[in-house]
């Protein structure tokens, strides 16, 4: 049945691909190669003396208890952000999917936070929760709770998690809503006729049918929590107090840009690069195979 079309020239296809390849090379492969090169060197801040040290930077990073601290922080942070953002978005999407008055307005408003830049989002939360100038922060202190996220590590972590999750809810909401709308009504009606109550219908019919969306969003949210939350952390806590909110990506910044330790910072970047590659591979494979549509 199928006829294979074969183009004779070899030049044209490569020519057509060239812009894409050029962009990928210049903006992805070249910086990545630079990072790998830098991770094998020891260099003074001004770049005047550099020395090849093999894997010493990697050994130093992995033996650093503060790096393990950053790994722990990142795990807690990413799990909490993904959990809260997915849970809240799913709840809101299910509510918005019902036939209610003003659903359009409701949906639009829920999408807005996604348009807020991370640093701006952080400043909004700062004005709410700052212990001496924040609305809620002052109220908490007035109510007798010692709220000072600049000194209390647990409170600082809580604040950056909530701020980061809040920003991601909108994105998840859109996908969940689309996912819910694509579930055929007939399936739900059949379940209803069999006597399944709404909660039971949700967990046995709707939730499994949403699984491709959920899985996709889980990966996206983890990536977001790993890499896109720099602005939130930078503006709210700067990684402190102590090192309580220093995540992997923030540590790359602190070591490279603030402390001018380029080798160590590059080694951490390379490790992060490996994590992204792994996450992407997992996502592609699973989407192709396991998750059923």
């Amino acid at each position: 049945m199928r006829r294979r079309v074969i183009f004779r020239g070899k030049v044209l296809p490569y020519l057509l691909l060239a812009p894409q390849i050029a962009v990928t090379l210049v903006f992805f492969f070249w910086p990545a190669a630079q990072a790998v090169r830098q991770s094998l060197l020891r260099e003074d801040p001004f770049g005047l003396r550099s020395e090849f040290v093999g894997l010493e930077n990697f050994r130093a990073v992995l033996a650093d208890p503060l790096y393990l601290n950053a790994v722990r922080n990142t795990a807690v942070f990413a799990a909490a952000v993904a959990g809260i953002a997915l849970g809240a978005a799913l709840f809101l999407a299910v509510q918005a999917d019902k036939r209610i008055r003003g659903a359009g307005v409701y949906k639009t408003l829920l999408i807005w936070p996604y348009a807020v830049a991370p640093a701006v989002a952080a400043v909004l939360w700062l004005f709410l929760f700052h212990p001496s100038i924040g609305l809620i922060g002052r109220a908490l202190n007035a109510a007798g709770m010692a709220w000072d996220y600049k000194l209390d590590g647990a409170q600082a972590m809580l604040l950056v998690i909530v701020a980061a999750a809040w920003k991601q809810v909108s994105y998840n909401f859109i996908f969940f809503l689309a996912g819910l709308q694509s579930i055929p009504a007939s399936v739900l009606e059949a379940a209803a006729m069999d006597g399944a109550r709404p909660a039971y219908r949700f967990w046995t019919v709707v939730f499994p049918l949403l699984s491709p969306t959920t899985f996709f969003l889980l990966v996206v949210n983890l990536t977001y929590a790993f890499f896109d939350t720099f602005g939130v952390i930078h503006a709210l806590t700067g990684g402190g107090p102590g090192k309580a909110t220093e995540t992997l990506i923030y540590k790359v910044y602190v070591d490279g840009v603030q402390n001018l330790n380029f080798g160590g910072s590059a080694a951490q970047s390379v490790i992060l690069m490996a994590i992204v590659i792994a996450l992407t591979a997992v996502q592609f494979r699973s989407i192709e195979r396991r998750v059923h549509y």
Partner: protein
Amino acid sequence: MRRRFLAAALGLAAALPAAQPRAQQAQQAPVGIQFWHGLAQPLGGLLEGIVADFNRSQPRYRVVPSFRGSYPETMVAAIAAFRASTAPHVVQMFEVGTGTMMAAGRAVKPVHELLRETGVEIDFGDYLAPVRSYYATSDGRQMAMPFNSSTAVVFYSKDAFRRAGLDPERFPETWPEVAEAARRLKAAGVGCPMSTAWPTWIQIEQFSAIHDVPLATQANGFNGLNAELRINNPVQVRHVRNLADWQREGLFRYGGRDAAGDALFPSGECAILFASSGLRARVVREARFDWGVAMLPYYPDVAGAPINSIIGGAAFWAMNRGPNQGRSAEEWRAVAEFFRYLARPEVAARWHTETGFLPVTRTAYEQVRASGYYERNPGADIPIRQLLRGGGQTTENSRGIRLGGFVEIRNIIQEEMEKAFQGQQDAQQAMDNAVARGNQVLRAFERQNRGG
């Protein structure tokens, strides 16, 4: 990270071509000098005023000032620019960066070399010893041009002192008395009796100097890159423990890292603030209450204390353009003339009286004193008197600090102090951890710069 770096470099590269043609037609148009500084308002405006005066004072050179964010941000920006061959001619670098700049090899143009090559003369003998020596090699060659030098002092609210029944004209001299005063303030209803800006600089570095205890071996790093931190000594640990105890008692409030604590005094929130003498300009402008300035307190049972405090603030460094690019003789000449202008007594005196930074030369100090300024502004001479406390003979522990990677070490100390203030560890553990982590930074810096 790489991408941000690249973006920054591209941005700088795009901004530069405007400056290039000017250098080529140097004969007619004035020689343009890029000058990056790290002073926010109101200090930044006052500094740019001095630059404007220099530009008006002669037709051949034009210094273009530009604000690059806080001191650490300015330092990082200058280093990144150097790597991209777009470094400014002159950069204002805070004293913490001195160790890094000293080891920077051909990235910087040492001032003594600059003056010799251009034939411009500046009398460094007139500079106050603690100021001059902070930015000179141990054999006395001047590396950077001292400019805004400060030291740490106490600002206190006389109104709050009166309310608490304390003598508003006499600030307590010793720490036990200060704690007692804080208790009285708290009892009188002051929510924040005392706080500190620059926790590391004031409560560790200044504290070590005043009590004549070493911050690090090798004369605080002046004698070599192999220095090790010594801040886990009993005198220092006792002080950090006291601060943590006072914090629990409600006498002391942690005001945040670096300059974050500054805001707590002019707003009237805290009655006592340990801060840079350079905060004076802001207090004069913003404080709506009666206030005073006093010298840093000490522990009376420490033998020899108190002696002179050390300086902070910043100096101006002349930089080469990039790893493989230098400057023309005309450009160096412009930089040298700019430096000579800054050394003029009237310029130094004006900067001192407008801002509260120290008069950096003896002539400027004498000029200001003769003008009767200190009678009209009580307390304005406290910083310089404190700097000369104990006879003005600096010891190995009070000459200054010259440690590589010191920006990072300061953050480490601040982090460990924060953990102590949170009650996660006691003062001894905090200082032990700071020493262990700080020494790793020192060793890494030593390896990076070995054989330089």
